[in-house]
């Protein structure tokens, strides 16, 4: 089935090749390459301000990379026209950092809108699907509430329900644990894994929350803010235990100062 010799194996869903991201003359990340395997939970890690979220933005079509390719199912995403990119985007479900619910609509309308716009389903069917998606994240009671009336954790879960509106097979999470208490955050982690297994989705998660990374991610990439490139690949757990790069090990073990004397002060 899978051919390890080919550049893109069958179980690679997203392949990033030599990606360089910049804002004008300011380079955010350069020459980053990695593969995301089908069904895996892939973590984009790194300290604050290293360009994790920017990387995510270029993968979901919000920021055109300066150079390099993002292959989604073998298709060069940024080489497609806008219409085709929108079609590809419908394979994506994105949970934004703040939930990004549309504030003029109720939670239920938020989940329903993509279905209303992109499917021919009858309103009654859409309503049932909305109840289902909200039920999966435990938010069915909030269907008629406005985003301003619910808590941050609930907004994230509702955002997750909306991300699943079009039954995507790739879920993106931008800092899912940010601003959540440890229990809520752990529940969200469990939810992500359950949904991944249940829906057969691939998950790409941008985070620096170590407990959550260790709990759910099984592959990943570590972006560095000083060299502006990926300095380590692998599962967060193995990076924590086996990485030979001092910065990565320090980050993964939550050590404030680097133990290795070879590193210079930033």
């Amino acid at each position: 089935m899978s051919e390890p010799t080919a550049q893109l194996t069958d179980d690679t869903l997203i392949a990033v090749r030599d990606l360089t991201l910049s804002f004008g003359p300011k380079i955010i990340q350069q020459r980053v390459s990695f593969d995301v395997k089908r069904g895996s939970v892939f973590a984009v890690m790194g300290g604050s301000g290293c360009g994790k979220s920017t990387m995510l933005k270029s993968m979901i079509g919000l920021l055109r990379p300066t150079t390099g390719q993002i292959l989604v199912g073998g298709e060069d995403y940024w080489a497609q026209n806008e219409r085709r990119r929108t079609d590809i985007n419908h394979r994506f479900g994105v949970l934004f950092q703040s939930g990004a619910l549309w504030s003029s609509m109720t939670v239920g309308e938020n989940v329903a809108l993509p279905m209303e716009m992109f499917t021919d389903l009858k309103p009654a069917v859409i309503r049932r699907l909305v109840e289902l998606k909200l039920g999966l994240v435990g938010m069915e009671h909030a269907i008629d509430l406005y985003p301003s009336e619910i808590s941050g954790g609930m907004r994230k879960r509702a955002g997750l329900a909306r991300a699943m509106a079009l039954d995507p097979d790739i879920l993106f999470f931008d800092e899912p644990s940010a601003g959540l208490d440890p229990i809520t955050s752990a529940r969200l982690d469990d939810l992500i894994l359950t949904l991944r297994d249940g829906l057969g989705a691939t998950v790409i998660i941008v985070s620096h929350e170590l407990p959550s990374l260790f709990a759910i991610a099984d592959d990943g990439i570590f972006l560095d803010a000083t060299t502006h490139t990926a300095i380590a690949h692998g599962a967060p757990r193995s990076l924590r235990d086996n990485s030979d790069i001092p910065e990565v090990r320090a980050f993964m073990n939550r050590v404030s100062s680097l133990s290795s004397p070879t590193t210079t002060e930033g």
Partner: protein
Amino acid sequence: MTEALSPSAAPPDAGTQAPVWSIVPTEQGGRLVLEGTWTVPKGGVPTFDANALKNLQNGQSLQVDAKGVGEWDSALISFLWNVEQASTAAGLTFDTSILPDPTQRLLALLPPTPPAATPSQFVRQNLFARTGQATLDVLEETGVLTDMMAQSSLGAVRAITTKSFMRGKDLLSDIWRAGPNALLIVGVVNFLLGAILAFVGLVELRRFAAEIYVTDLVGIACAREISAIMTAIIMAGRTGGAYAARISTMLGNEEIDALQVFGIPISSYILLPSIISLSVMMPLLYLYGTLIGIFGGFVVAMSMMDVSATGYWIATFNGVELKEFIFGFIKSYFFASFIALAACRVGLKAGRSAADVGVAATRAVVIGIVGIIAMDAVFAVLANALGI
């Protein structure tokens, strides 16, 4: 010699002691002896006089002794940081070893020098560069606005012909906010303007015994200019500012990003309801404002002028032609489209912070008002050329 420098040698008052410092020479160099209460509320932040180090030789050390210090806070740390910089500049070793451990650690956190003052951001470019930049900006904005207009018109066509990206509910709520909600303020302003016009007009016209022409004055002025402009200015401040603030808030909340990821076109989803509702409602508001303005004039005329109510209305209907209303109506439509487009554009271009929302709202109002006046001038020239 044991000369003690202490510029702040104020006599100790009851309870607290003023911060006092002095330098005592030792074999290794000097010892900075600190005494008193070193807190910001009680003693302020004393400054260190670098001249006090002039008796010490390069390479010697300056030891800090703070055993006599009672209470302390940032005032002490700030002073010590000051001393550290001065002694480094004088080539002395700054020795904090006999300070309490927490104080030493605080000092160790500080960089060797305070940050250099950032140069002013207002770099003056020369006149040519500024003119060129401004021209490019104007051209770009014109292009973007035209593109937005085209996109929204396309969206409007699509909304009629095929599956629409616009939600009827959004359009209705926008119409409600742009129309009925504005009735009171538009009414009040136009009523008062009509009344003021009639008052000023009557006082002047009375000198020529031409008081009855106040009906023409109020009617034509309101229908042709005043109501159209005032309604547009009110709506630019009210609705234009609200559009810009709403869109830039959505931007900061990643709501626009979420729309883009789903492939929901912003032009038809956000811009279209705003533009349609304002361009539909404002001409109607204009008509309403004109009638209220004329009524305001009527009320003043009734109290100051010897004419019957019927007579006043007949004179008004005879004096003000229908074309004045049509002219004002058409102008209102263009003002409304401009306000809505410009406000949405400003909102979409805004940054993502709370301050940016304020800036966007302000800018939308300013651009709206200036644009309305400028457009009105163009309309006046056109009307003159066409003989309307």
